[in-house]
């Protein structure tokens, strides 16, 4: 069963003919060509596919594309603006929150979602928010440091703006 699916992906309105049984992750990767969103497991066990739907972190591998009709979807490809990495992206790069990079898009999107609602997360809050995202390289320490560094950047730029 195919029908037209409309949503906004990384700021661009889209309308695509999409099957009812298509997962959001497959829609993003295969229809939109946004392969930054990764598949690491057979469904909901690793968090690599996390994207933002209306600002909230979602597992795109356990979400039907059509369930997101009308929503604003953001992927890792949409995070850098005007050639500048987002605070989360630059922190993951600078602090080595990313080694092999495969869990990174999911980690970045989950962190982004956390920091949009809580710019001063405690270490425990970071651990809890990212608890569903598995990384096999880092032992998580530098990921936590990356999120903390991103929070600092965000808070500093807010203060500067005020």
């Amino acid at each position: 069963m195919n029908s037209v699916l409309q949503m906004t992906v990384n700021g661009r309105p889209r309308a695509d003919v999409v099957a009812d049984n298509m997962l959001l992750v497959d829609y993003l990767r295969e229809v939109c060509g946004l392969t930054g969103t990764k598949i690491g497991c057979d469904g909901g066990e690793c968090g690599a596919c996390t994207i933002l739907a209306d600002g909230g972190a979602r597992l795109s591998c356990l979400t039907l594309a059509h369930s997101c009709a009308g929503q604003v979807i953001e992927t890792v490809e949409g995070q850098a603006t005007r050639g500048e990495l987002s605070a989360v992206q630059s922190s993951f790069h600078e602090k080595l929150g990313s080694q092999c990079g495969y869990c990174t898009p999911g980690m970045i999107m989950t962190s982004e979602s956390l920091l949009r609602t809580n710019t001063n997360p405690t270490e425990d809050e970071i651990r809890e928010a990212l608890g569903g995202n598995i990384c096999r390289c880092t032992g998580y320490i530098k990921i936590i440091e990356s999120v903390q560094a991103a929070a600092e950047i965000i808070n500093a730029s807010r203060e500067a703006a005020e």
Partner: protein
Amino acid sequence: MTDELQHPRDSVTPNDPQPDPSPDPERKVRSVGERLPLIDGPDKVTGRAKYAGDLAQDALVGRILHGRYSHAEIVSIDTTEAAALPGVVCVLTGEDTTQPYGILPIAMLEYPLANGRVRYRGEPVAAVAAIDAATAAKAISLIKVEYNELPAYYTAEEARAPDAVQLHESRAGNQERDVHFELGDTEAEFANSDLVVEESYQCAEVNQVHMEPNAAVAEFDPIRQHLTIWPSTQVPFYGHLIFARCLGLEKGQVRVIKPFVGGGFGARTETLHHEVICAHLAKATGSTVRLTTSREETFITHRGRPETQVNLKMGMNKDGKLTGLASEVVQRGGGYPSYGIVTILYAGTLMYGIYDIPAVKYDGYRILTNTPPCGAFRGHGTVNVRFAIENLMDRMSEELGLDPFEVRRKNLLVTPTYTANDIMVNSYGLPECLDWVQKESNWDERIKNLAPNKGLGMACAHYVSGAAKPVHWTGEPHAVVNLKLDFDGAITALTGAADIGQGSSTMVVQCVAETLNLDASQIKLMANDSDHTPKDNGSYSSRVTYMVGNAALDAARSMRQILAEAAATLLDAKSEDIEFDGTLFRVAGSQDPGIEYMDVVVEALKDEGTITAKGTFSTPVSAQGGRKFRGSAVGPTMGFSYSAEVVEITVDPDTSQVTVDNIWIAHDLGFALNPLSCEGQIQGSAWMGMGQALSEETRYHNGLLISGNMLDYRVPTMVESPPMDIKMVESIDPNGPYGAKEAGEGSLPSFIPALANAVRMATGVRMTETPITPDRLHEARARYEREQANNVAAE
């Protein structure tokens, strides 16, 4: 290059002062020793980085049919219906993939698609290429396979039984390899020891669970008869050989490009069936095929650490001095050889190189069983034996009333030296590692004030910086790096070293930049395209920093000489008098205004054009080990890393769940070329050790992998993962690039026994099994408490 190396046997005595290869701290531009973010980091954080499964979204889709029996003859395969399905482009079976392959030239027993017989549940039996995933899946379901079941063996013991059916004709007794050596007289040493203890250890099989499931894209050009393949691999070069071999192509008809790779940890240090199948599908269709696999398929492809039994006998004197060590190791290898021979050899030879033990005996058995093939996993060969040794040392220290740190100190090597099995040991930072973790963990005080249910444990480990002898012995150098300098002044480093997230590309750039006195941002890097980059054996056994790093240094020195000569021409001076401060070339000590870098480049290119400078690294014969026993070539290395860890835990009295509260690690990595990246390696490896120690294990039901998902195979999450205090001990290896050696493996094996030793302190129970899951510990505690009660009753 080779003549600059130093070896204890031919040039160094313990008292010789070592040259200081550390970079000059006065320099303006520094590249090594700096916390440099990875050069490919921006690609990874923006989603630009393309992994194999991200490529060629419009390609044909490949899919594999997996056999459903553990051990069976394939009577027939009927692909008629599948082949007739609209949208199916080709269907292959074992009849189409008749060339066997394997990572070890002496153990090529595996076929891309089973050749008449399956030997583990899930072995590939057929494959299809179709226009889309749904068609491919449908086609797979239409293939009919008739099997004739054979007896299957799920443990080493069953497979070794005298009447067991042989899995492979050439492997009598289902033994892949047995290894035996005795150096010194262990029985005589035991007879004269104050304490001799025997114990058995059982370690469950574990899987790497690299985050990227296995994938490949292959493109075949039928006109040129040429294959281009993008596999998720740590060893593109070995793949190159195997693709050519299996497809019946000349090596020159193959191009291997390694895309971004989402980890490996050893699983991808050999070419895996999905890569070869994808290549076959591409050739059969004359087209481009993308083959991505599920997490379950990736689990079943396996190549993890084998289920291992270690029987140890160890002698110790009252002062803590080890007298002798006898070890029998049995590994359940799975249905095919993989790296098995190397694993069972490492398990023996790596008893050496860390402590001074007068007599060592080893009996190793690598067994073929009807389970997925095991391979090389971070800490290859040493992990389970190190768990046993450090665990038993702790027990014996306790029985003799000795401090575990003092016992380690009592057995330190005097370096530089050669071990009894002829392994060269140069830099040796273990003493400093021990001092640091003891002090920083506040061990002496902490141990006196432990709250109930808390425990503290320590252990040590070591690991090689690359095998001194390569898997394929060709006489070529271990590593080659080329540098290209062209009209634009840019220097591009070309390397075959496979960056799989460990940061090898960044390391090459740093070594080149440092040697040339340029900023790292001025060096470009191209890696892993066999049409363009020099051959490299790949990323395994922690060989890359040491070997490729040295080759990069060698190349950069040549390039530096070329530039110096051009500057000398312009300055009318001798090239050896030229110095470069990162901006200007001038005669050393002179007041002349200097010449810009670009002007020197223009001069260098005059009459020459594009310049290529090459660097190589070869290991000297004196580092390659002796011939005291069959297989003694496995183990020798240019340098060992050393690790000491202290682990603090809490055990829940109700659930026996172990929580790791703190970890202190000191890791002797020679020199931290990139402290940021080295920390990441040490943290990641200790944490991976925690997974094996506490929660990770594969489980089978009649050979069927029950834990083939990330719920039942429990990789630790961020919530329960502990903080760590890390010290990078810099012993400055005399031959490593700027003194560097292994950083990414040695802190895995030390974690597991340190944790087990902490469990003993917290609960009284000395665990001899891994993982120490709550149910295992609960049972062991109940047993222990019963024994204690009986002992009290007996008294």
